[in-house]
Structures are given as C-alpha cells and as structure tokens.
C-alpha cells in the first residue's frame, strides 16, 4: 500500500491534496483494496456544498456499497466524469484517481487530517497488524 506524503488523510479513508484553496479528493489505496472491484461511483453535483465528516457520495463494489465522507468543507467545482465509464481506475491506481475537486472554505482545516505516516499507523491498528 502506498500513501503519498503530499496528501492528507481522513479516518474514513479518503485522501485530499491541497493546492492553494483547491482540494482534490480521492479514496485511499487501503479503501480500494478493502472494497474490491469497484463497479460504480456516485458523486455529488458541481456547485454542491459538502461538509467535513458528512456523506458526499458512495462507491459500489461487487461486495458492498460504501458511503464517501468529505474530508474537507467546501464547494464542489469539478467531478471526475470518467469514473462513470471506468470506475476500475480507482482499483488500478487509487492515489492518481481523483473523485471531486473542492474549493475549500477554510484551507487550514486540512491540518486536522492525518499525515501519510499517521494514516498508515491508523490502518495497521484497524486491521490489527
């Protein structure tokens, strides 16, 4: 499992990459591996407000449907439309496959999220390794 150090991580297994006041959100390598083959991604609409800790969409795999929780608060500016046709790219490379882009309400909020190392520790604790 790889967790880029430039990303920040939520305990609900989403990553966010911050660039100025824009946050790019995806799910972690651990999340895609636990879900298994992803077959459908439900994303919010452009312009929708999302709030840190609240649901903003869902990911469906052959095993289950899992909710997506926003790691940050802000307004959705872009969604990754390509996922409609090729949701499997999340399985191929979760770190390079973004779901939504968000204009952050308060960019400092991401400081409350986990670093790559802390997230890895958290995942290991959760899976009991």
């Amino acid at each position, binding site marked *: 499992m790889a967790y880029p150090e430039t990303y920040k991580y939520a305990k609900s297994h989403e990553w966010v990459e911050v660039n100025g006041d824009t946050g790019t959100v995806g799910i972690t390598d651990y999340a895609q591996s636990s879900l298994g*083959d992803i*077959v459908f991604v439900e994303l919010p609409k452009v312009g929708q407000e999302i709030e840190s800790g609240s649901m903003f969409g869902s990911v*469906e795999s052959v095993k289950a449907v899992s*909710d997506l929780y926003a790691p940050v608060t802000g307004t959705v500016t872009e969604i990754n439309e390509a996922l409609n046709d090729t949701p499997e790219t999340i399985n191929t490379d979760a770190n390079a496959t973004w779901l939504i882009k968000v204009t952050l309400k308060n960019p400092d909020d991401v400081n409350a999220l986990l670093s790559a190392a802390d997230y890895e520790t958290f995942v290991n604790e959760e*899976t009991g390794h």
Partner: protein
Amino acid sequence: MEETKFIGTPRKATTHVSQNEGLMFEKSSAGKKGYRLPLLDVPAVDAAALLGEAVRTDGLGVMPELSEIEIIRHFTRLSTWNYAIDLGMYPLGSCTMKYNPRINEAVARLEGLAEAHPYQPESLSQGALGIMKMLSDALIEITGMDTITLQPAAGAHGEFTGILLTKAFHTANGNPRTKVIVPDSAHGTNPATAAVCGYQVANLKSNALGMVDLAELEKMVDEDVAALMLTNPSTIGVFESDIHKISDILHAKGALLYMDGANMNALVGKTRPGDFGADVMHLNLHKTFSTPHGGGGPGSGPVACKKILEPFLPSPVLKTNPDGTLGFDYNRPQSVGRVRAWYGNFGMFVRALAYILANGPDGLRQTTEDAVLNANYLRSKLEGTFELPYKTRSLHEVVFSDKLQAKNGVKTGDMGKRLIDYGFHPYTVSFPLVVNGAMMIEPTESESKEELDLLVDALTQVAREAEENPELVKNAPHTTRLQRLDETGAARKPVLRWKAPVSSTELTANTAAKEW
C-alpha cells in the same frame, strides 16, 4: 485434474451432473408451435386494421418458437440446476433459511382458501378473515405489541410501512423530524428505508462488543431524531443487553424505537420486543415463521406496533363487528394509506398460522432454543479454524472472518464458492460490514447435528485447503456446470437483453430467429 479437485474426501458431494442447456431463443425454429387451434367458426378479422393506431408491430423482437416437450424439458432441466432448502442446507446468515413444513402447503392448498377471491363479500370470507385475525393475535402475543398490519409484502416493505407510521405519528404531533439513526451493523435496507421516507440517515458506530454505544447514542439523539432502527439481536448475532436503556434514551427525546425483526428467530417465546421498549417492528414470515423464502417466496412482512401508532395503520384494518363477525374498516382518516393491493400475501398468512399452531407456544420456544444451540455448536466447532471477531455470546447466528485465510490470499468469497463444491450453499459473504471479510453462518433449528457436522467437515476442509493449496480455493467452484463467473464484468457491463447473432436476413416478427 480430477484428483486435484479435493484434498481429503468430501462426504457430501461429488461432481454435479452436467447437462448443457441453451437459451430458448437459440432452440427456436421458425413456425414451430406447441398448440393447434380449430378452424375459425366466425369470419376472420384483420387485427391491425381493427386496432388502428393502437397496433404495435415494433419492439416486440422475435419470440422463441418451440414444441411443448421442448419447453417442458428446457424448464425441467433448468429446475434441476437449482439448489433448494429441500436439497440441502442454506447456512446463509441473516436469512433464516429454515425448512418450509409440508403441512403448511397442505393447508394452503385447501380449496376454500386457495380458490378464495379477494372480492368475495365479507359474509362469504369469514374463514379467511378468521385466519388473518388468529394470525394477527398470535403475532401480537409473540411480539408483545398492541396491534398489527399484515399488508406489507416483505421485510423492506415492512420497514417502509413502519417508518411511514413513525413519520405520520411525529407529523400528527406537530414535527415530522428530520433524522433516523441507523447502526453501522444494520441491514442495508434500514438506511435505504429511512432515505426513501425522506429522512436523513445518521450512522451510529458499534462499540467493541459489536453493540450500540450508549454514550454515542445519547449524544446523537435529539428532538430532530424520528427513530432508531435497530436489529435485535444485531447482525452479528448478539443480543443488545442494554435495549431498555436504548429505548429510554430515545423516548426521553420523543423518538421511537423501530425494531427490525429480521432476527426474531432468536427471540420467539423467550422475550418480546414490546416488553423491551420497541414501538414498531416488522416480522419476516418467510424467515421466522417458515413460509417459503427462495424463488420469490412471496415474502410477507407484517408490522406490529404500539397503540400510539394505531391510528396511522394502513387501511383497511381488520375489525370485529358488533355481531361477532369479522370485516374490514376503511374509515381510517389518519391512515398512511394502503401499502399493498388487497390485504397482503394471504397464502403466507395461512402457512405462518399453520406453523404457529403446529408448534404451539412450547414448540416455538423449543425452536428458538434449538436455533441458538445449533449456531453455538457451529461456533464452538469452528472457532480457531476461523477467526471470531466478536467474542460476545452468540444467539442464532455466528460471524467469523477470513482473517486467518486472507494471509494466503484466500477471502471469504473464495471459501463461500469452495463450499459449493462440498454440496452446500455458501454462507453470507462480506456482511455485516462491521466485520472485515465476514463469514456469517445461520444454521436455523431445522438442521440436525449430522448435517451440522457435514458443514463443519466441509468448512474445516476448506480452511485446510486455504493453507495447503490456496489456488484451489481461489478458483473454486470446480464441480459446478459453470466455473467462477466474472461478477465484476457482470456489474460493470451488464448484458440485459439477448441479441441474436448477426443475421443476413432482417429480423422481424415474421421472420424466424433461426434464420441467423
């Protein structure tokens, strides 16, 4: 390859008999008929001219044309491919796949019941109404509730009805409220129900024992919460021992306790939801009360509730007239309305009542005890072979995980498929979601110790294979007509309609499917 299919000897299954069976469309021959009609004894009319604009010639496609025996053989062959509760055990956790007693079928086929018409006058339907009344009374007694509707056609439909009642209740009290709390171990239908009824779903995390975290619940419940939807025992087969406190927390804020009765098979005759604080609940007659489950049942999901919800029950409501006869009361101004045509799946009422009466109170209690005993027998036999994530005492089902086998790359789904090679239907795979790699097993009271031992044998064998020859398990099943299917491909690119291979002749209703 044959000799590598099994390590050890399966006692229950050898290779399935395999007979290839094409699609009916592929067997079709132009003009072949399974019937012959006499010559018209009236003048022929041109149907197309008669129908005028209503005539439809497009979009019908080509219908298969076969003889009677071809059709009979086709479906009979397909029927032999089925796995059924009458062929073997279904250890599907959360589904309560118990035996459907033959006496139920005998009673349901009595002419007066099987041939009854829902529009028969009430005066000629007293027997059928009597069955509904007796069943209602029995279910009210079993659940400890005050009243009931038999209309809902299945569990999720029952949930929908129950939450509609909840919403109607809160609305009548001036505030429909906005949220429904659902634990993370819940059946997926619970949050779906809440959402369909217009509520926001608030997710409640389980504590380390797999139960409701009271402190967390207390923080979440406020005047905006309409209800908590709780399955008790929970989906990991554990009884919520703090259920009284849970209902007190809810009631203190005016919220209701909805109980998902999916797991009532662990409670019947032992404890009553009405006594431990549930306000509204559904039952699954096709789980707890032995009506058929597979092949579409049909199901039946009666909703029992407390008096406070009675005014809102779906109409019509069964009533006893002053002269002692039974009838329906349609004058229900506060009712949420009908949720089902007629009065529900009546055939299931007959079967469920037959089951209840055949067992009697002592029999039903014994049923519960045996279901719990069977689950705990499996737990004690298989603990160690598979990881047991929650050590809390099990009731009617037990949830293991694939943690020990996942080290070799063998997942719960692989072992479930391998179980097919050993002659069993797979257990419930990857549910509940609170357990990573869940293997959920519910034997029900129907299985004998001998059958349980066969399952233990098979699962122990599968675990051994996962250790010694993981590829064997990862590629299972090996003995079925079709090998492992591409579930991902089926979900990503579903083929929803048969298409004839490319034809040189244009296919119309008048050309035949065979011309390709």
